[in-house]
């Protein structure tokens, strides 16, 4: 066991950034190695973390998931008199929800670092920002305190903004600003909910210490917590003793809500006649849906992808989009489970719309990278559909899809990057028959394309299959989704094959031809060793996880089963209470 | 016996003359002289009114103070005028209007 493994993973890039600042400009070729080595160790540590993580942990009653390897420390504590006490914690932990994402981030960030070798201006700034991004991504996935989460979540925008805005393509300013504003717009909703939660939720353990039930937090027993919760419920506790918290684990328990506060289920706060808790779910949903992205909040994605440099595209598609899905799973669903139950139809519908709409759009795209970007929209629709079903298969499928899409979209963007490196052009119609010139490249492309549209044997198939099973079964298990949604989603699978195969036919096979009047032909050489070293591992991982799903599912399935059960049970119970009150 | 009225009359005349000098004369020396006249007009009043205070003679004492202060004031005033003259090359108050708003 390694102590402080989580913090190590998160903050490893910080000394690396300092090191970058010390290396003189004259030695700028060293920068990329610093980044590569740092992310390599992050990857190694995430693999170690993954191996240490126990798939089946002891069952704790009522817990949504079973957190492991917790790292908790008080960060900010303020006594605010009659406003109670403010408590912000440095709180990291892993469970079935984020372990896959950590592994994915470790892999993709390392691959992205290798891909960054091609960056040819402002080396120091680029690599510093890249490492900063790495820290924020891991921080975001690991933090269990909403305040901490939000800091990482927002801080991620800064490096992304500059990475697209400085090292991007011709329309980089437009794309980076669009990306920034879009995401910030979503964050505002999230922030509002976080503030509301802060005022509504108390930390029963610290409150117990405050009212003198115990003299130290470590000595607080479950009975004491119960007593605090019970006294809180009847309004016996004085405001002075209350400890307001951002700790996510307390937010999932309705007993920790202050009676009469905004998000207390019986408080009856409404907005436009809708209960505040449902509104809060919607607000969180919009915030994270923009990141995912879900149609109609998706138009930043194609622009950002097209303009971003290859490594940033890889990270954007491979990791950043997953934060949207992860945020929904980590915050929106457990904290407001009734929202997930109440809006399941809507969410499922948006998922299906994203799948089909994204696929149709991909079909119409002329730019290879844009086509891939829209295919991401389509694939992320499956994440939403699986989540909306709230079945064991569906939610596991969602995580699997995020993981698998992370690998595959990374691969796809590397493929687009290879072509762009050689010709600075990605228009599908400008090429034909690349297979004769670049056989290895086209072989890898074929594998990636087939994997992406869910050919069995690749990870995408397992993911989509599980999502479809979950969505289809939801009718008989919890009656949240109608069967036609799963059936409609299969059309997306069909369309996926259409646009990928079409591109394959138009661009990569047939007689060799490039747009006349350009001197690309000599430049079109096959993959270099460095490019192969990035692509082959991704392809191999996609196959490995396609054939042996238990590699991932054994780690997450136990947690996800209790997660689904908890969400469904408390969701239905809360919803009944809400409807009774409203 | 000269009545109080006469004293006051002369004092008033003296005051008016001093005032008129101050208002009309352009040369600062003359204005200083005008001021002296006004002070003396005041002195005259003090002396005249001291008739009603035969024991302490506060009026006469006061006028003595005024004379001394007037002397000092004349000295300071003349010194200022000299400095002003050496700076502005004139003693004409109309030409010294740096304080004009």
């Amino acid at each position: 066991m390694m102590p402080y493994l989580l913090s190590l993973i998160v903050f490893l890039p910080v000394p690396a950034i300092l090191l970058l600042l010390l290396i003189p400009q004259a030695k700028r070729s060293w920068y990329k190695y610093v980044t590569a080595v740092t992310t390599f160790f992050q990857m190694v540590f995430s693999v170690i973390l993954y191996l240490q993580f126990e798939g089946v942990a002891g069952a704790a009653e009522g817990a949504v998931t079973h957190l492991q390897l917790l790292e908790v420390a008080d960060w900010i504590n303020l006594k605010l008199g009659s406003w109670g006490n403010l408590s912000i914690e440095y709180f990291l932990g892993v469970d079935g929800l984020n372990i896959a994402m950590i592994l994915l981030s470790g892999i993709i960030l390392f691959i992205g670092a290798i891909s960054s070798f091609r960056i040819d201006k402002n080396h120091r700034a680029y690599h510093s920002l890249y490492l900063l991004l790495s820290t924020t991504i891991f921080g975001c996935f690991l933090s269990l305190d909403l305040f901490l989460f939000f800091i990482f979540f927002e801080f991620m925008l800064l490096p992304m903004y500059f990475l697209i805005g400085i090292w991007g393509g011709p329309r980089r300013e437009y794309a980076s600003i669009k990306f920034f504003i879009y995401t910030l717009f979503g964050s505002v909703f999230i922030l509002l909910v976080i503030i509301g939660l802060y005022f509504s939720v108390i930390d029963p353990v610290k409150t117990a210490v405050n009212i003198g039930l115990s003299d130290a937090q470590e000595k607080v027993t479950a009975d004491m917590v119960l007593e605090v919760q019970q006294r809180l419920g009847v309004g016996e506790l004085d405001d002075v003793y209350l400890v307001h918290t951002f700790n996510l684990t307390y937010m999932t328990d309705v007993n920790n809500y202050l009676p009469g506060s905004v998000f207390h289920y019986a408080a009856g706060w409404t907005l436009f006649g809708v209960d505040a808790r449902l509104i809060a779910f919607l607000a969180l949903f919009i915030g994270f849906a923009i990141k995912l992205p879900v149609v109609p909040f998706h138009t930043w994605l194609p622009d950002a992808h097209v303009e971003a440099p290859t490594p940033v595209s890889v990270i954007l598609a491979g990791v950043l989009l997953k934060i949207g899905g992860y945020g929904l799973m980590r915050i929106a669903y457990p904290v407001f489970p009734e929202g997930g139950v109440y809006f399941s139809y809507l969410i499922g519908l948006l998922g299906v719309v994203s799948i089909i709409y994204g696929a149709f759009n991909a079909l119409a795209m002329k730019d290879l990278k844009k086509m891939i970007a829209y295919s991401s929209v389509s694939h992320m629709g499956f994440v939403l559909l699986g989540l909306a079903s709230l079945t064991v298969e569906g939610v596991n499928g969602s995580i699997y899809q995020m993981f698998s899409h992370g690998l595959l979209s990374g691969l796809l963007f590397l493929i687009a990057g290879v072509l762009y490196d050689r010709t600075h052009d990605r228009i599908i119609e400008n090429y034909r028959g690349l297979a004769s010139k670049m056989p290895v490249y086209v072989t890898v492309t074929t594998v990636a394309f087939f994997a992406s549209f869910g050919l069995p044997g690749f990870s995408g198939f397992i993911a989509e299959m599980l999502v479809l099973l979950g969505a289809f079964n939801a009718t008989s298990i919890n009656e949240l989704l109608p069967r036609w949604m799963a059936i409609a989603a299969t059309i997306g699978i069909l369309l996926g094959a259409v646009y990928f195969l079409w591109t394959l036919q138009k661009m990569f096979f047939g007689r060799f031809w490039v747009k006349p009047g350009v001197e690309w032909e000599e430049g079109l050489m096959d993959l270099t060793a460095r490019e192969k070293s990035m692509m082959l591992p991704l392809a191999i991982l996609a196959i490995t996880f396609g054939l042996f799903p238990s590699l991932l599912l054994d780690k997450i399935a136990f947690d996800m089963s209790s997660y689904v059960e908890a969400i469904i049970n408390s969701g239905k119970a809360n919803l009944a209470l809400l409807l009774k009150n409203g | 016996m000269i009545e109080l009225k006469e004293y006051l009359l002369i004092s008033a005349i003296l005051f008016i003359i001093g005032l008129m000098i101050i208002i009309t004369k352009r040369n600062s020396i003359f204005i200083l002289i005008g001021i002296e006249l006004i002070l003396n007009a005041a002195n005259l009043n003090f002396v005249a009114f001291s008739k009603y205070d035969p024991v302490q003679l506060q009026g006469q004492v006061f006028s003595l103070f005024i004379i001394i202060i007037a002397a000092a004031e004349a000295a300071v005033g003349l010194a200022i005028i000299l400095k002003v003259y050496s700076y502005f090359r004139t003693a004409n108050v109309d030409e010294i209007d740096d304080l004009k708003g």
Partner: protein
Amino acid sequence: MLASHLVKMLPFDTVTALALGILTLPLLSFFILFFYGKKIFHKGDWFGTAIIGICFLLSIAVFVLHQQSGLESIIARVPWFSLGKAKFTVSVSVTSIAAIMLIVVTFISFLVHMYSIEYMKGKLNYERYFPYLGLFTFAMIGIVLSDNILITFMFWELVGLSSYLLIGFWFEKDSAVKASKKAFLVNRIGDVGFLIGILFLYSRFGTFELNAIYEVVKTFDAEDKSYLFFTIAGLGIFMGCVGKSAQFPLQIWLPDAMEGPTPVSALIHAATMVAAGVYLLAKTYFLFNEDTLLIIAVIGAVTTLAGALPAMVQHDIKKVLAFSTISQLGYMVMAMGVKAYEAALFHLVTHAFFKACLFLSVGAVIHAMHHIKHDLFLKGNYLNFDSQDMRIMGGFKKIMPVTFAAYFISSMALVGVPLFSGFLSKDAILLATWDWASANVSKNGSITYYLIPATAFVTVFITAFYIFRQMYLVFFTDFRLADFYKEANEVFGRMHEVPWLMRFPLIVLSVCSLGFAFSINPFSVNASWFVHLVKSPIPGISPEGLHGAWVPVLSIVMAAIGLFMGYRVYKEVAENNFKAMRRTLLASENVYLFFKNNFFLDKLYKTIIIKPGIAVAAVTSRTDSKLVDGFIHFISVSTVVFAHIVAWVDKYVVDGLVNLVAIVAQATGKVTASIQKGKIQSYFIFTLIAVILLVLFLYGLLN
């Protein structure tokens, strides 16, 4: 009632372990040849062939061991992964039909491998060809062995992939690439249906294990199965079959698939993969209810005819066989629909041999044509003729007698002439359709049921016609290319029989197309060993119970008429001018074109599916750039406009007020400053006036 509790883990025994070995060997071959093919002797072709040969021997062992065990099915099942309570498993199931299929697949694959060594010699990307064949064989064996329908689906898609790779093997040819894409996509339409069927099964039974589901379903009676659920699930699975087995209306991909190398067509698009649909029906047969079976029968009958009609008028030597395959697959599916389970599978097996043989002999002809083209080129004649066009062939009987013999035997089997294998299986189907129709007619009173046997019989005639047409055009009369190029005759004269590597598979397959191979009594299907090995999971029409001696008689008569017609028409055509062919064949040019272009289905789909699809894509893309992004831009523009308004207000209203205060102060200052002239005497005067005023004021105050 769920079936998941019936799923027990079962260890591998000898038979299943051997079966697993048969499955993994071709995969191994694929990996070795794909990555190291260039380095192995002869680019690995012999290695790949040998591996499949071993598989064939193992398959025989599996078959024998299974027969000895006396069990209906031997299953091994291991866990794959689990989600909470849901357990996902992988299973290998050896049944009689699976064992037979194993032999058929590995045997034909082995022969095709061998044939390909010669056929593909010197072709571009030769080192890629054998790994792909290995991949296909692996996937096909997977379909055969897997008892888990999800795993079956995975292999199902994998054969689609290998079919894609092999159809588009000559990837520099645009038509080949297009055909491969089309094949995959059309198949995927069917696969989507298959997937939906699987979803239904899983949601109903909680498992993918067919054996477990069967244990539950076999307790159901007809009424239990009449629910819409079974109909939809059955139709979904049937859709998979429609795609893969090229049934109407998805048969359009198979003729195009002929772009692939001919041995590939023989193996994948004639003998094995396309028959996988029928095999799938056999595997899931217990799920089908009366409604589903009726639909299956109708689709099969339509396909039978829809395949045969275009075959009459094709010029491409391979396309005739492709359409013929569609037609024969229609027979099998129709047989499944009329509950002639054994007959359908029997026809599957016999068809696999004779159709592979047909393709390989036709491949030999094409091979010769390539040589002729090549030789003409060497002589300085660059002739751009289509070496698959039957109109320029003819007379190959003389130079390739073995090929002709093989072709003749297999075509007789196709027509269903007695003594040949096709007679046994096809007549079993014809009998079954007749029995089924008469039983239904007597039950429901509607004579429309007779349409199905009628179609089947008419198709016997058409089959005989088109195959004899082909035989005549290719093997009889003279070499017609010489009509256009005199030099061709000389080159043709120097052609000779194909080498032994190609000849051996032809001979073996034609032997397998003889009736003796399947029955001691080549006139009676009941005497065949095959029908005693397979047993329908639901009560159906087994060949033993069939009667009606007139059926084979009628079919023979139909076939004879067809053969005769084909001979008459094409004797005339080939001897006269070629252009007269259309008119002699069919009265109407339109009907001719209608058949020639496969009923214009491609055009139809282009109009009703592809074009609207692309239009929708254009609309969504415009929605994105105009509506969604337009909205976003509108928001951003209005934000900026609003910001400008705010800036204006700030500048002129808020700042204006502040400035106003300043201006007032300044003006006041100016007014008051004008008093301050710097003239000491004026100050005196002001003071004086002020004092006077003060005095006056005080005076007034006192009074």
